């Protein structure tokens, strides 16, 4: 494992695209949080409808920041797609295998990268939330709802492993990025066409619901459940289990594809 991490580090430490995408992510998350805070201050009537809370106040900041950061995960997912497709395009994955790397090690390497990226993204949102909360919150109740960061961590692993699968399937950088981005609305449309209940089990929907819109779960839970008029929502435990299943499935499928494919 140490060798694989050392290898990924040697490959990526000078990959500027990753640094740029991460810098944008780091900039955009706090900026968006401030923008939201400003927006709700300017529009108190909207705040009353949507949130009833200050976005930068503890503990609401955790649901706001994880929900907001989940949109910007796309930037980091694009870096996963770029790195993987570049490895195919430059034939460096092929060369790595010629030099003695196994296909299993290739997958482990990418998994290690996904975990690393998710850890950094989660730590960043955690630190960002803490700093913004300590600066702007009217209270210091920071530990309440802090578990949302753990859910955000699972969510990022889910998105990035999905991005990895896309990259291995499509192989070409630009097409892989476009199809990955297009898949988001496609899944939403498809899910709503098939059935609302089925849609809850779709991979990106499962990941997205780990950090839902602030107060979304509370609103849903207060309304009618199941039946024809009610809204069906998976429990948090079900979403976590399903996310884990999809993450394992993504890496297993990727391994299966790589194992069978001529490079």
């Amino acid at each position: 494992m140490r060798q694989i991490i050392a290898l990924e580090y040697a490959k990526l430490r000078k990959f500027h695209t990753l640094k740029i995408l991460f810098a944008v992510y780091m900039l955009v998350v706090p900026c968006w949080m401030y923008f939201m805070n400003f927006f709700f201050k300017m529009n108190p009537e909207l705040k009353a409808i949507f949130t009833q809370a200050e976005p930068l106040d503890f503990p609401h900041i955790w649901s706001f920041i994880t929900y907001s950061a989940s949109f910007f995960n796309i930037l980091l997912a694009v870096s996963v797609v770029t790195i993987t497709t570049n490895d195919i395009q430059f034939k460096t994955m092929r060369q790595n295998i010629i030099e003695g790397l196994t296909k299993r090690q290739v997958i482990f390497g990418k998994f290690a990268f996904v975990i690393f990226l998710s850890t950094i993204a989660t730590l960043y949102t955690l630190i960002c939330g803490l700093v913004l909360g300590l600066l702007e919150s009217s209270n210091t109740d920071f530990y309440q709802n802090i578990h949302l960061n753990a859910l955000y961590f699972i969510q990022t692993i889910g998105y990035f492993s999905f991005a990895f699968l896309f990259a291995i399937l499509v192989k070409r950088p630009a097409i892989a990025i476009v199809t990955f981005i297009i898949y988001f609305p496609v899944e939403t449309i498809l899910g709503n066409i098939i059935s609302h209940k089925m849609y809850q089990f779709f991979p990106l929907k499962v990941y997205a619901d780990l950090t839902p819109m602030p107060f979304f779960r509370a609103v849903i839970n207060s309304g009618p459940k199941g039946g024809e008029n009610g809204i069906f929502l998976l429990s948090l435990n079900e979403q976590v289990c399903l996310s884990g299943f999809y993450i394992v499935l993504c890496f297993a499928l990727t391994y299966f594809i790589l194992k069978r494919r001529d490079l």
Partner: protein
Amino acid sequence: MSEIVLQVDNLSKKYKKVEAVKNISFNIQKGNVYGLLGPNGSGKTTTLAMLMGILHPTEGSFSWFGNGQEDRNRLRIGCLLETPNFYPYLNAYDNLRVTATIKNMTDPKARIEEVLEYVDLKERGKRTFRTYSLGMKQRLAVAAALLSDPEVLVLDEPTNGLDPEGIAEMRELILKIGGEGKTIILASHILDEVQKICSHVVMLKQGEMVYNGTMTDLLLQRKSYKLMADEPEKLLSVLRSLSQVKILTEDSDSLMVELDDNLTGADLNRLVAEKGVYLSELHAYQKSLETIFLERMKL
């Protein structure tokens, strides 16, 4: 008999409609330099790609170092297959560090310096790979192949894209490596180069193996002979009666003939003497590998 480092048994690769490699079998012995020859599309690169684990054979098997097709075998092999493939945003040092990590080298710094020096890239080692000329890329690929001091070196068209000076340098380099007792498998179009470097030859034609043996045997087998006798007409009639002899040219006083693979000049001398014709001259002309190769490809 020296140790076998690679055993290939009935290896085949079939794409949808094309059979790129057909049932080939050969052994590679330790310490020899093997030339893998064949025109474009003959299956050289496909064969090497299967042996290096990036293509799945349709049929057959191979075994490196007697360990079958285990992935770890490749850690003992240095390989340049087709084009040099490196991370374009990394310099030579960083790219070789990637290779060193794969090869499980503990402290590769000194060795990286050494191989870059060896291929004359040390001065430009800090420049990113994307800025390199084709010749520099090719040399870096050779450096990567040599990095872990492998037991076997697989080089597929190492002189591709090189200028005449680069080709000469690469030839010197391969000769130098071969002189160090390494086993080398060299696929090349430049037959003059192969003739100078290789001790053994495996020849492929449309995916089929048409020759497998030593370079000496190949060159000796395909000698042509100039024959003279006191009675040229009688000699001609005797030669016409011998099925192992092919008459190439007829002059008033001499004949040029080619012999079957299993017949030597001495055998011919004996055969015609038995028929009462005594040769006044028997001169062997050795054909170049290129001529032999072209003849074999036409067959």
